[in-house]
């Protein structure tokens, strides 16, 4: 048994898993607040990464300036999507809303390919040192940054929902839109805010991935991996999404380890989350922490 590889893969899984967790969290945020399943989450990641890359390479903006500009842009972009595309869809059947987000993802991914090409673009170096030695294990600096950023985002999100007034309004809207509205909460602005925050958080995750791996159209694959993570945790649980993301990240890498050491089936890494997804849906359809729908007639 190759312990070195296993540990390396577990660290890898944890880092990637927390990133999945962050993206799943922003996915669940939209679902919880607006009841929209966002199939374009991966494209939000991609857009954020490309915008940051573009600022950094074309305009030579320093990173500490480029990042906030990207985030502000994505914040406004999220609001714009909600107002222009999703707001007319309120009250439409679920299939229409899902189709709109699928169509959005097609448009965005094609637009990004058109504007920036299909090739992988390396991200400008941000850190001077490449590796840090922790307990005898060589860990890349970007991995540490990724982990730190992810955890910071999660803590920030938890603070926002638990303690801020706006977070309270959002939770109230998620609980019951009509009651929230009658208590003076502007449901419209809560919807817009949910998209804005989700887009911003996704963009942060996108930039982190871009720093680690470079930017390419393949980044939107994170949007697909979100589904196993969010389903595992339960579609409407923010904490569950984070946990689900970490589990999926670890699962991927464990599958990779088993594959490369014992099974040699090849490519198990990519498909394992989807088998896990089907199994979860068969056994526990509402995930680990999701609320079970109880319907009365």
């Amino acid at each position, binding site marked *: 048994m190759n312990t070195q590889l296993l540990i390396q893969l577990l660290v890898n899984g944890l880092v990637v898993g927390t990133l999945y967790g962050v993206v799943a969290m922003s996915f669940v945020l939209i679902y919880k607040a607006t009841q929209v399943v966002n199939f374009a989450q991966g494209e939000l990641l991609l857009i954020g990464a490309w915008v940051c890359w573009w600022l950094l390479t074309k305009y030579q903006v320093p990173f500490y300036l480029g990042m906030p500009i990207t985030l502000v842009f994505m914040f406004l972009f999220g609001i714009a999507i909600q107002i222009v595309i999703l707001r007319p869809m309120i009250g439409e059947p679920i299939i*229409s809303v899902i189709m709109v987000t699928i*169509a959005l993802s097609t*448009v965005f991914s*094609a637009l990004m390919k058109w504007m920036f090409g299909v090739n992988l673009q390396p991200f400008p170096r941000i850190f001077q040192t490449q590796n840090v030695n922790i307990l005898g294990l060589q860990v890349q600096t970007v991995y540490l940054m990724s982990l730190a950023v992810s955890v910071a985002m999660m803590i920030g999100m938890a603070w926002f929902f638990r303690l801020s007034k706006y977070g309270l309004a959002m939770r109230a809207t998620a609980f019951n839109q009509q009651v929230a509205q009658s208590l003076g909460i502007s449901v419209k602005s809560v919807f817009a805010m949910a998209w804005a925050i989700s887009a911003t958080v996704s963009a942060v995750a996108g930039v982190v991935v871009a720093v680690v791996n470079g930017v390419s159209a393949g980044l939107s694959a994170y949007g697909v991996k979100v589904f196993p993570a969010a389903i595992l945790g339960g579609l409407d649980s923010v904490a569950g999404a984070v946990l689900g993301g970490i589990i999926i990240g670890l699962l991927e890498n464990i599958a990779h380890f088993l594959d490369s050491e014992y099974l040699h089936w090849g490519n198990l890494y990519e498909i394992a989350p989807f088998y896990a997804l089907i199994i979860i849906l068969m056994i526990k*359809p509402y995930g680990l922490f999701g609320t079970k729908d109880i319907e009365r007639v």
Partner: protein
Amino acid sequence: MAGQTLIPAGDFRTSYAADTTVFPTTNSRNAMIAGIVLICFAPYVVNAYILSLLIQIGIFGIAALGLNIVVGFTGQISIGHAAFFGFGAFTSAYLSNRFGIPVFFCIPLAGVVTAAVGLIFGLPAARLKGLYLAIATLAAQYILLDFFARAEWFTGGSVPASAEPFSIFGYTLRGDKQYFYVVLAYVIVCYLLVTNLIRTRDGRALVAVRDHYLSAEIMGINLTKYRTLSFGLAAFFAGVGGGLYAHYNLVVSNEGFGIDRSIIFLAMIIIGGLGSIMGTLMGTAFMVLLPESMEWLSVALRGSPIDQFLGLKNNIAFLREMAIGVIIIVFLVFEPDGLAHRWRQIKAYWKLYPFSH
């Protein structure tokens, strides 16, 4: 059978037979028959390019019809239809290559095998609804694609599997002109089958599940059975369409059964009209012609300032993808009932002309 040639103003159906009739008037029936007869002459009138488009419309139309059963009539969401389409294509090629079954039987057999696979993936549908189901079908898409890449005995792996040309009673059909009639026959049979299905108890049960599944269950409709059944039916038509596709191209490669094709299938039924049988065909025609017309447009604009600005020649693939997405959004926002609804409105306008209001 309807006897009158015009529909009376208002809803005057007094018998059950009049309510479930396929053609409301004899005129509409005759028009349909005339249309089918006319299209039989198509191979002798149109050129090879348009003929190939017509064949594509027929093949994809059958698969889209299956998707419309599950999405339009039963109200379930399936994002993995292209994978079933691909499964049908590989199955048909495999059956004819491996067992020497005549292609004539392979295509319906492919439909049956694909239906069995569809039932397996439809099992979660028995317990799930809405979003969870959509995500389960998304997983089915990826799992089947992975299976295609993995199962070399079945698909040939990275080398495309070859498919036999269509033959009937020892006579092999070659070329588009002859294959056109095969596709036409399948389209007519499939569309008649589904039209009839919707008139039966099972078909109405599907619609009831869509409209209000709790009420449907209380009225004695077995939700599990009908949800799973709709998935099986959808996969059946996807398999038949896939089989036709395999023997049309004579080669089946791993390409072209991905999520983007699934989105195109969904676009077909949304543009045509969810829960409309003829609309499915209209939507398919629209989605087949859309990329082609963009191609014509880009050729027409070659060298113009628009071309230089957009770089049409190199970027046509991305623009096409974008156009598909934009069209879906535009239809969902402005015309959620699709082309079928627009067509009914046009008919209603001319029926009352010049007194329409």
